[in-house]
């Protein structure tokens, strides 16, 4: 099958073209070792089916960014049958800069002139025939969005792919032409493929080429000694880049005739930008947009209608008030639907979708399957495994699909519209203090929803170390699944230790803030030690604003859904089964009922590691039943939802186990879903202190996130060593945070010790970085 590669600048409509060409056959795959997507799909309307490969969006073929190296190596090594170079007609000069580099390779090329409609709307004209003549390769006008000109484009590409093409360069009129030609002949003599391309890169002094063609290098160096340009001196990289742009301005740019003679026009996009990145209003507008996104996704009080009604001393009735729900049961099926939208306040769209998915679809389906299994007459352990293990585990994970998709949809809209780049623009200054660029803000804030899409989003970061640092701190932005842990423990603390008076939300909020503080400290620390490096540059295109495309958004969402479902049915399913088996079988492999969890393999293992958590306040000091907190934390490593379900199981088991401290505890109280009563039972049984409990939630929040996030981190980081380092980092951080919280909470004077340790470490790092002390290699005279 012939292979056509799509190459072009970021944001030139490449993905849209790819989707239009391949339709639903597209699938996403990862390049080995590099965390940039390469997609491929099949186009079927040519004489024979053609594989379409979507290369990463790039501005140049320099050796400096991973995307550029990937695209370049693909064309050089995999030798596609044709390269379709997409050129954004609204931005001709910069797009053709990449074209001049692609044309130097010995590969058939077709130019797809995209976004012609936008050019014509402005009243400008491009003479495509003239451009074709000057470039020497076919130029086809297309609209990827409206799917116009695509068949023509593919016919031309198919035609070209049957011919041979030798590379050609626009540098033939520059003083470098002579040198380039000599090097090209020398390389061709050595049977090097693409001699022209390699010759030019070698003249530029490109790191990759210098490494590859060591024998030819002396020849280039010899020539360079005698060469001195009046503007650039001996800077050949600059000479080449300048040569390209000069040629483009002189020979290619004139094919465009502008209606307006004004050099710098003001478009509609510029006017929008004037408001959105306004010196004074820019940041407030951004905060409002951010708030709206989270409000629309998570709020159970849409537009605060419920609150306003309360202020007006006319609160909206709950469904119970209306007599539609009696004793917690809806009176009919219609009420169940109503309850997904309204109960004393109107829910936000995100919550409604969530309720419909969970209460009416997944819940129903799994309930029905559960019922079938229950009555199937299987062995009790098999029923338990399927119903309590697999179905509950899958249900817990699938229940997170709606909020993840809703958040993802909003962020896709921001990205497609061009506003995302402006957020980075607005916030860059603030983030530079921490050694990051403004672009890393977005993945971090997405972390409040779910770490998985947040980590995937770090692909937009150009710098490898910045990406690693960002992936590592994303879990500290407490995700949706961690919230129930916070509310359950906070609620239990207030009820048990403050007699019910006090604000549990205050504890929850402070934990969120603790997470942010830990993230900031960690980034500073990493950028000063293991991930040292210069602040990545911020030379970034700010694309024109445009309305997001419905089709694109849906494609994004569908990709995301597939990815998530695949994960739920593989790694998470497997881990759920393992956990269930380990909590329901003893060391002699006999099946245990829920009450006997204390004798299970996992309980045994947890008792074994329990002493490790003593400095965190939930270890040995809690006595016989202290392992329950360890087990909850360990279960949380699979999925944070597990912590709450483990609370419920353990609470019931503790009461069943007849502990004196729990006599008179009403088991019916455990029915509440928030887990507060279960935590109270655990507190009573273990006599854990308040600092111990806070340390427990702080530990859960900052430790290794769920399996899904760990798997995502692994694929995003690519590098195995870096991934292992990340796991260690999470463990050490959470242990330290837990220990600090517990010791300072229990004995306030230990804060002085911690302060001294932190000051000491800071001094050590600062002095080490300044070269005042040298730990590894002590200097001796």
């Amino acid at each position: 099958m012939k292979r056509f590669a799509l190459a072009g600048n970021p944001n030139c409509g490449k993905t849209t073209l790819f989707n239009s060409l391949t339709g639903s056959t597209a699938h996403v795959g990862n390049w080995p070792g590099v965390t940039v997507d390469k997609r491929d799909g099949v186009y079927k309307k040519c004489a024979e089916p053609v594989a379409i490969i979507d290369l990463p969006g790039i501005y140049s073929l320099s050796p400096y960014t991973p995307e550029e190296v990937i695209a370049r190596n693909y064309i050089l090594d995999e030798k596609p049958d044709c390269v379709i170079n997409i050129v954004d007609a609204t931005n001709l000069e910069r797009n053709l800069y990449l074209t001049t580099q692609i044309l130097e390779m010995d590969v058939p090329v077709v130019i797809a002139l995209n976004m012609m409609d936008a050019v014509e709307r402005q009243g400008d004209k491009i003479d495509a025939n003239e451009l074709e003549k000057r470039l020497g390769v076919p130029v086809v006008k297309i609209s990827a969005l409206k799917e116009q000109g695509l068949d023509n484009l593919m016919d031309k590409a198919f035609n070209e792919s049957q011919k041979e093409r030798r590379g050609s360069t626009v540098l033939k009129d520059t003083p470098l032409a002579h040198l380039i030609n000599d090097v090209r002949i020398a390389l061709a003599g050595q049977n090097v493929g693409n001699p022209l391309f390699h010759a030019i890169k070698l003249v530029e002094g490109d790191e990759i080429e210098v490494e590859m063609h060591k024998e030819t290098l002396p020849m280039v160096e010899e020539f360079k000694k005698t060469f001195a340009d009046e503007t650039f001196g001996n800077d050949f990289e600059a000479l080449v880049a300048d040569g390209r742009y000069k040629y483009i301005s002189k020979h290619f740019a004139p094919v465009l005739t502008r209606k307006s003679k004004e050099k710098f026009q003001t478009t509609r996009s510029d006017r929008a930008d004037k408001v959105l990145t306004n010196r004074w209003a820019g940041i407030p507008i951004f905060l409002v947009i951010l708030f709206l996104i989270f409000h629309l996704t998570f709020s159970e009080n849409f537009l605060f209608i419920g609150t306003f009604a309360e202020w007006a001393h006319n609160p909206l009735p709950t469904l119970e008030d209306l007599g539609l729900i009696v004793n917690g049961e809806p009176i009919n099926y219609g009420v169940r639907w109503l309850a997904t939208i309204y109960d004393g306040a109107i829910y936000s769209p995100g919550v409604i979708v969530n309720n419909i998915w969970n209460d009416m679809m997944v819940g129903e389906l799994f309930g029905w399957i559960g019922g079938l299994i229950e009555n199937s007459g299987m062995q009790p352990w098999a029923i338990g495994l399927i119903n309590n293990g697999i179905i509950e585990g899958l249900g817990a994970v699938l229940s997170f699909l709606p909020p993840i998709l809703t958040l993802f949809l909003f962020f896709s809209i921001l990205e497609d519209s061009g506003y995302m780049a402006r957020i980075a623009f607005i916030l860059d200054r603030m983030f530079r203090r921490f050694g990051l660029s403004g672009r890393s803000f977005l993945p971090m804030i997405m972390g409040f929803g779910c770490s998985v899409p947040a980590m995937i989003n770090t692909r937009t970061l150009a710098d490898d170390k910045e990406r690693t640092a960002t992936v590592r701190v994303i879990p500290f932005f407490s995700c949706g699944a961690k919230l129930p842990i916070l509310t359950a423990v906070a609620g239990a603390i207030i009820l048990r230790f403050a007699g019910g008076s006090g604000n549990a939300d205050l504890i929850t909020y402070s934990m969120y803030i603790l997470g942010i503080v830990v993230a900031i400290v960690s980034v500073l620390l990493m950028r000063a030690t293991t991930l040292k490096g210069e602040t990545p540059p911020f030379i970034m295109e700010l694309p024109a604003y445009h309305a997001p495309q419905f089709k694109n958004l849906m494609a994004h969402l569908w990709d995301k859904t597939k990815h998530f479902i695949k994960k739920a049915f593989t790694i998470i399913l497997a881990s759920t089964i393992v956990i269930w088996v380990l909590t329901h079988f003893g060391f002699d492999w006999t099946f245990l009922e829920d009450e006997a969890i204390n004798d299970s393999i996992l309980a045994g293992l947890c008792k074994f590691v329990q002493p490790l958590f003593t400095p965190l306040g939930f270890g040995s000091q809690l006595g016989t039943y202290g392992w329950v907190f360890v087990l909850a934390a360990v279960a949380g490593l699979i999925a944070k939802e597990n912590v709450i379900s483990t609370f419920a199981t353990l609470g019931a088991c503790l009461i069943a186990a007849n502990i004196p401290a729990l006599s008179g505890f009403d088991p019916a109280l455990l029915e509440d879903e928030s887990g507060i009563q279960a935590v109270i039972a655990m507190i009573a049984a273990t006599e854990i202190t308040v600092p111990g409990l806070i340390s427990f939630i702080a530990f859960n929040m900052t430790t290794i996130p769920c399996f899904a996030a760990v798997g995502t981190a692994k694929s995003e980081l690519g590098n195995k060593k870096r991934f292992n380092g990340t796991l260690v980092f999470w463990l050490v951080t959470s242990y330290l945070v837990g220990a600090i919280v517990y010791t300072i909470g229990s004995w306030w004077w230990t804060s002085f010790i911690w302060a001294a340790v932190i000051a000491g470490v800071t001094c050590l790092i600062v002095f080490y970085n300044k070269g005042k002390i040298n730990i590894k290699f002590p200097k001796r005279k």
Partner: protein
Amino acid sequence: MQKTLDKFAIGEQGVVKSVGGEGKIKRRLFDMGITPGAQIMLRKRAPLGDPLEITVRSYELSLRITEAQCVTLEVATDSVGGQAE
């Protein structure tokens, strides 16, 4: 009159004379079209004063002040500078 890009007032225009800076940054500036002869207008500064937004080769580009310091331009005499900070 020549000055570096970071010294431009909002709305001021100029023609690039030379581009300096360390290899990787200079190459990136070149790749994005900031080469000698290119016309540039400073559009705005971010709310916190940095980075800057410029128009070059009829598109918008953002870069930091430290990166803008690498770009020296000849100020266009007819440009509408000094629109105020």
